[in-house]
């Protein structure tokens, strides 16, 4: 639709190729450069149109909306200045959802990295059957938030679920996985670690396989133990990948929504009300697009800070070959 508008222009730009050859030599050079210029923008235009309509414009509009009061249909009703922000900062629900988001990140990211590193190291040093294990640990890549959440919702069922049955066999439980405010966030985190475990594994395995085998072997020959080789050579060499993974996982933890919407809807007692869920609730359940946008801007600033940390830390603590 939008692109067709642009390709109309393209035919105008491209067809007068004869004009170029008709001009004098200096003119021809200038025309060729102009043509090159226009072609550059023509090739960029499809992406650019999408970015402008669905990223840049909405980004600006989010900032604008965060200073407004809106009616339930999303139309601006009144300018309220910083009111949306000041009310947000004063509300305990806001700080609660920030805290829940941070806790959720701490519960999922380190565990996910350790699990990925463990699986990747084991698979790499496996001789027979390593291909099978590689495929098995990659399987979670195919999982989606919808299917994984439904599956775990059934596993987590307090009286009839498989998890409580198995734990019961060991004399533990029954655990109120999703209905107890004390355990709900942990349960959602456990399922999230499982669902997301494919990505760190795949990335770390590729990184380990890319390490220089000679360095590993010579350290082994020098008599360094497996653990020493791992901690003093492998880990530093893997640090760029681990660091990248940490940043990406933190960002994705900050953006989690689906599993919370399906498993707990932010409850019980707001114990799983992460930031993105509170944006969703504010804007699309309470129809408060103004305050919802203010929350979205907070999310944006947090992401920006995380990216800044990434750039600052890069080249300092992380080892590059």
């Amino acid at each position: 639709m939008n692109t067709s508008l642009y390709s109309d222009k393209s035919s105008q730009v491209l067809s007068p190729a004869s004009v170029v050859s008709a001009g004098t030599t200096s003119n021809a050079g200038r025309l060729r450069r102009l043509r090159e210029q226009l072609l550059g923008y023509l090739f960029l235009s499809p992406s650019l149109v999408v970015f402008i309509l669905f990223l840049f414009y909405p980004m600006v509009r989010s900032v604008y909306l965060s200073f407004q009061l809106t009616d339930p249909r999303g139309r601006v009703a009144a300018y309220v200045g910083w009111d949306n922000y000041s009310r947000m900062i004063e509300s305990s629900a806001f700080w609660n959802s920030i805290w829940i988001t941070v806790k959720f990140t701490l519960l999922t990211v380190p565990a996910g990295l350790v699990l990925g590193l463990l699986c990747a190291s084991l698979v790499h040093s496996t001789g027979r059957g390593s291909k099978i294990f590689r495929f098995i640990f990659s399987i979670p890549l195919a999982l989606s938030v919808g299917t994984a959440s439904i599956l775990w919702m059934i596993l987590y069922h307090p009286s009839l679920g498989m998890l409580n049955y198995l734990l019961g066999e060991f004399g533990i439980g029954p655990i109120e996985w999703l209905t107890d405010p004390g355990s709900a966030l942990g349960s959602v985190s456990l399922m999230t670690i499982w669902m997301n475990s494919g990505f760190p594994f795949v990335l770390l395995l590729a990184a380990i396989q890319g390490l220089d085998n000679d360095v590993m072997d010579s350290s082994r020959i020098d008599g360094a133990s497996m653990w020493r080789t791992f901690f003093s050579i492998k880990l530093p060499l893997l640090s760029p990948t681990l660091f990248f993974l940490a940043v990406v996982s933190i960002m994705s933890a900050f953006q989690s929504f689906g599993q919370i919407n399906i498993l707990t809807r932010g409850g019980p007692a707001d114990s799983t009300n992460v930031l993105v869920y509170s944006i969703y609730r504010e804007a699309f359940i309470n129809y408060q697009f103004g305050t919802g946008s203010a929350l979205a801007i907070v999310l944006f600033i947090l992401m920006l800070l995380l990216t800044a940390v990434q750039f600052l830390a890069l080249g300092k603590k992380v080892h590059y070959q």
Partner: protein
Amino acid sequence: MKALSHPRNPLRLFSHYGLLILLTLLVLGPLLYLLTQIFMTPDEASQYPPKLLPSGLYTGELKNAIETVPIFGFIFNSFVLATAIMVLQVLTAALAAYAFVYIRFSGSRFWFALFISTMMIPWEVTIIPNYLTVKSWGWLDSFQGLIVPFAASAFGVFLLRQFFMQLPRELFEAARIDGCGHFRHFVSVVLPLSGPAAASLAVYVFLNGWNQYLWPLLTTSSDAMRTVQIGIAMLQFEELTSWNLVLSGVALVLVPSFVLLGLGLKPLVRGITAGAVKG
């Protein structure tokens, strides 16, 4: 070389495989549960203590799931959505990446920096205005509303740009000398050569489209437009459905993803690692 890096001592070998099998059980456990449940009769599935294995390969619940829920409709919608986003993103990304690598135009560095900076904008931050935009265009509950906002991605541009830069420059010069314009060069030289990178991007984009949750949740409302992820999540609210009916639905939805993973694991891994190492 390899012989040095894996354990040969029997005790170590035992603990090595023991740990691997334990981890396998953790990763596969929920999926094995799913696999056993879907072949149970409703009576078997509702027993307590729960049965671990079905008594036979009962496929009644799978059929039941297909009959009671428009599951193939959901799958069709998601397939159309994911395929369209995949084709559009690969195409727009290839065009933009081509411009950044082969066309000399002023401002190209600025635009590249701007493109890359969009990766910092979380999609959730733009979701309220995007919802309002799509609503005002009358695109709610339509394929264009689901597809067009995702027709381009900075990640795709970045990935393909990296790949194009590695293509031998001589090919480009030879084509220019032959009087080949940018369009012909793009279509007949660069696109055919970009197969591996485009495949990586395509698998990645398709899976992301197939797994989309928040946007379809907001913009679709009729059963006819529901995607798999939303459709499957709706099953849980149907009061009368039995567990293994829901799980049968989940299994059916997972089949295409697994097929794609089986076929596309290699390009997918290559895409992920290329994005990560350079990113």
